[in-house]
């Protein structure tokens, strides 16, 4: 889904309403983590050919950050969730 995104809050919306940030990298490390862990978080990416998770911001709609599970070969999206659920596990 790279033309339209089914925002869990707003429904089907065009790409124009979104800002993409990139891959959901490793979680933000703890404050005390080593520099290498931080480096990995900030710079290194899996960048897979196939299933991929990435951050999209519904900047022209609800202004929520979403996580899309999207196939980078076919552009098909299997899941869209509010990004806060990555940490809270629950609803946005």
């Amino acid at each position, binding site marked *: 889904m790279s033309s*339209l995104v089914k925002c869990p*809050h*707003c*429904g*089907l*919306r*065009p790409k*124009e*309403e979104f800002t993409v940030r990139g891959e959901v990298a490793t979680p933000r490390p703890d404050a005390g983590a080593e520099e290498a862990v931080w480096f990995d978080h900030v710079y290194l990416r899996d960048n897979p050919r196939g299933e991929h998770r990435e951050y999209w911001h519904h900047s*022209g*709609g*609800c*202004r*929520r950050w979403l996580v899309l599970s999207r196939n980078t070969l076919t552009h098909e999206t299997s899941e869209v969730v*509010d990004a*806060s659920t990555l940490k*809270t596990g629950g609803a*946005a």
Partner: protein
Amino acid sequence: MRDYPLNNRCAFPHPDASGAGASINLAPVKDGFVFHVLGDAKSDEAALRQALAKVAPELGDDVRKSSPGQWFWVGSIAVSDVRLAEIQAALTDTFALVDQTHGRLRMVLSGPSSRTVLAKGTMVDLSTDLFAIGQSAMSQIGHIGAMITRVEDDSFELIVLRSFAGSLWDELQHMAAEFLTG
């Protein structure tokens, strides 16, 4: 300077140019209020309506969801600073309330062609069975963000940032021109 005349200036360029008659009409909503209500992760619309009914029943409960836990609360009565402060104080904790009356302007696009005109801007499917009266969507009309609310079958209220209001107004005029001139 205590009695220096203060005017609340309208941000729409030529509000009177809105063509009357025809199959389309565009008009600013000049009075009233727009409050941005910020809830927390747990708050929902029912709780908000309840709170509003308790705190400010005179202002109605026309709330339009813009985001999870966020709404625009609009009404047609002017609210004084004092009254606003009271309401804000009464709502604290669960709901923070930001006055956007000056920052977000309202206009109404109406007439049988209104849906056709909006389809030139927004991707949201506004057909009646999918977008009923009272329903809202934060979306983009062309390059400009706006909240669209269906207020009647053929009538849509748009809320737009003040700084963009002139551009959106002009764009809607262009989009509607084919219906204005017949």
